[in-house]
């Protein structure tokens, strides 16, 4: 589902974020990406999301060589990937419903279908009763679950998460991870960047470790 073939990323200021990364993540895999901050976790996610292009090497997502995706094709590419951010990135002047509906509105779904899918997604993250609340009125954990609902509402085949439990206490973090596992169980490929080793080592999934831009373990299946 996601393949990195000798991928390097050097930023303009000469900093090597990724060096010669080889990696394959299969369809329906559940993979953690770990390492200290600055090890290259976010850069990998950014390359998959086409927020950045690799300096060298090839990234293939869902059978598509990303080098062949022109900037006009980026929105379409992103619609096939659900993303959860550490700082949630919600629209704070919109209701929970509108936030979750955003990817469907972008994809051009019909009004009733949007309502149905949004409620299904909110139900899955346990926030059906907060449909019309504003994000400000929600706790951090709830906001993160809104972010997750938004990431999965379009039924993407890939779910990326960048430090999804970064600001949450251990109980909430475990709940969030449990949610990701549930999505994985219905066939979604999940890739989670996290430096919370204590949490992720308990969960018995594949762990890819990065250090200063090198992949040091977990690259081969």
């Amino acid at each position, binding site marked *: 589902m996601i393949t990195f073939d000798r991928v390097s990323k050097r930023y303009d200021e000469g900093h090597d974020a990724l060096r010669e990364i080889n990696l394959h993540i299969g369809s329906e895999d559940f993979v953690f990406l770990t390492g200290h901050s600055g090890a290259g976790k976010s850069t990998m996610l950014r390359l998959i999301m086409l927020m950045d292009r690799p300096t060298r090497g090839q990234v293939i997502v869902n059978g598509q060589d990303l080098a062949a995706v022109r900037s*006009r094709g980026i929105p379409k590419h992103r*619609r096939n990937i659900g993303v959860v951010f550490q700082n949630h990135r*919600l629209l704070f002047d919109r209701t929970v419903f509108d936030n979750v509906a*955003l990817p469907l509105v972008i*994809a*051009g779904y*019909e009004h009733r279908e949007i309502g149905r899918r949004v409620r299904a997604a909110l139900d899955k993250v346990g926030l059906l009763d907060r449909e019309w609340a504003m994000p400000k009125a929600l706790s951090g954990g709830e906001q993160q679950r809104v972010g997750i609902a938004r990431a999965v509402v379009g039924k993407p*085949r890939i779910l990326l998460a960048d430090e999804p439990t970064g600001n949450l206490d251990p109980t909430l973090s475990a709940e969030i991870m449990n949610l990701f596992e549930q999505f994985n*169980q219905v066939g979604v490929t999940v890739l989670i960047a996290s430096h919370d080793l204590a949490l992720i080592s308990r969960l018995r999934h594949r762990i890819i470790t990065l250090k200063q831009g090198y992949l040091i373990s977990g690259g081969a299946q």
Partner: protein
Amino acid sequence: MIGRRKTPQRKASARPSRTGLLNQLSGWLQHHRLSAADSLVRVIENPGSSLLTWLVIGIALALPVGLNVALDNVSQVSDGWESPAQISLFLQDGAATEEAQQLASELAEHKDVAGTRFISREEALNEFRELSGFADVLANLQENPLPNLILVTPLVTLDEPAVSALRAELEENSVVAEAVLDMEWLQRLNTLMELSRRIVLAVGGMLVVGVLLILGNTIRLAIENRRDEIVIVKLVGGSNGFVRRPFLYTGLWYGVGGGVLAAILVSSALWFLEDPISDLALLYESAFYLSGLGVMGALNLVILGGLLGLAGAWLAVSRHLVHIEPQ
């Protein structure tokens, strides 16, 4: 991983999100409706700043349009005078009325003349007495100071030099004391009108550019205010067109509002001027009435405002939106 955790739900969930072409079209239309409504609500929710923008656009549009309406009215007045030009033949004092009448009918046969009208000195005096209000003074006069007059109307097809030549030819006649061709002031007026039109056009052009820049700047601020939102929308797969749409509608609403205000401003200015102008027209015994914008004029103004709004928004959006990318 294949064979593991196989559940009936899996296939449905793993299906890539895809909608039919018809559904996509209706979704696209739906987003247009949503963007239009949402941006209208945003414009109305900030009545203070929106009103200011509307006023700026309204005044900038009302100025040239109002001037143009004024010019249209002036040229409507002058059109009534324009053709045909008239040559006034003032006859010698000694010329008898019969002689003058004969000359008038002779001249009517002239190849360059469309018609003539003879006004005897008595008729002229009566007319003058009625119109001028100097009846008392005139009654004291020993004799009629006015000459016999023949008004000669040249053929409409004659151009200016030909009419001037005709005037010179008529003045040669021994009975004619003076032949006056009163066209110069009309030429001056027409030239002045043409000049004014061009000035209005130039001013209008500059104001239109001003409106575009003001709108562009307003939309730029709106874009800056919603930078986070734009980033998020782009992150979850919103195309540039999707991000652009609400801002284009915002521009449209500002422009349309400005056009409506401009129409109101022009109409109220005309209404304000209507009474004194009809009084003035009455004093000149003219049937002139002030013609306003009309429904079509007002509609055009609103459409023009809307188009300017769209153009200004497009300007801002194409310059600023591309630079906002998720980091």
